[in-house]
């Protein structure tokens, strides 16, 4: 094999390797708190840096999925001296049981925190049985 041929082969293998190492889609899992009250499950998730309109909360087939797109402010004159804030989009998926009233799930977003209220349906609710 000629020298050029070898170089081309090495380059092709490097490219293939680089492609394999690339993650398909980069995202971060936002931190969540999940707690339960008598009427509902409440999920709170830290998603700083996203706009309210870029958040999506979807419930289907026993799954709850939350996503949020980070707003990238691209300015050519900006030189990042120090960077800890993750620039990937938020994504997280949860399994939800049958006890959720899916039609009445509510979500709000304040100060970078997404709150999702998942009301329990009749089968899930704690019922007090009075003693006669």
């Amino acid at each position, binding site marked *: 094999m000629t020298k050029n041929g070898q170089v081309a082969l090495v380059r092709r293998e490097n490219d293939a390797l680089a492609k394999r190492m690339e993650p398909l*889609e980069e995202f971060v899992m936002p931190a969540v708190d999940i707690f339960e009250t008598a009427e509902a499950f409440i999920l709170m998730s830290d998603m700083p840096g996203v706009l309210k309109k870029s958040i999506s909360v979807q419930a289907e087939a026993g799954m709850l999925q939350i996503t949020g797109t980070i707003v990238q402010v691209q300015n050519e004159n900006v030189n990042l001296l120090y960077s800890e804030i993750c620039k990937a989009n938020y994504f997280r998926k949860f399994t939800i049981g049958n006890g959720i009233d899916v039609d009445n799930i509510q979500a709000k977003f304040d100060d970078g925190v997404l709150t999702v209220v998942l009301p329990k349906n009749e089968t899930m609710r704690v019922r007090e049985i009075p003693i006669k």
Partner: protein
Amino acid sequence: MSLIRWNPTRDLATFPSDIFNMQREMNKMFDSFSRGVDEPTLLNGNWMPAVDVAEEDNEYVVKIELPGVNKDDVKITLESNILTIRGEKKAEKETKEKNYHRMERSYGSFQRSFTLPTTVKNDKIDAEYRDGILSITLPKAEEAKPKHIEVKVK
């Protein structure tokens, strides 16, 4: 009667992404040794919000992730060129007695400090809190701004 079950395959699904996050974390750690940013220690507070520092033509911008923090609970001080951001993230009071299934978010006090270059206009520092991110704008003094000097060729 727990609603959200731990799903082992979900963690597996994020595995490649985690590896790259880890790599980034390691790089960050090594980078920080050679840079002038004060590394936070655990003694400074209960948690460490993530910070970006950017330099623009006319200003420096410090961004801090503070989701769910009341802006009245944050204090920004400047003392002999050291910018300090400290505050507290309070847990929701009404939820204290509730049954928790997961608790991953950080609560408690935090503090981060940065040594500013002397070329910052100390009296013109501005801070804004929006969508969980606190942005502090530090305008550069005139002498630190980039200048274009035209040189005439004779």
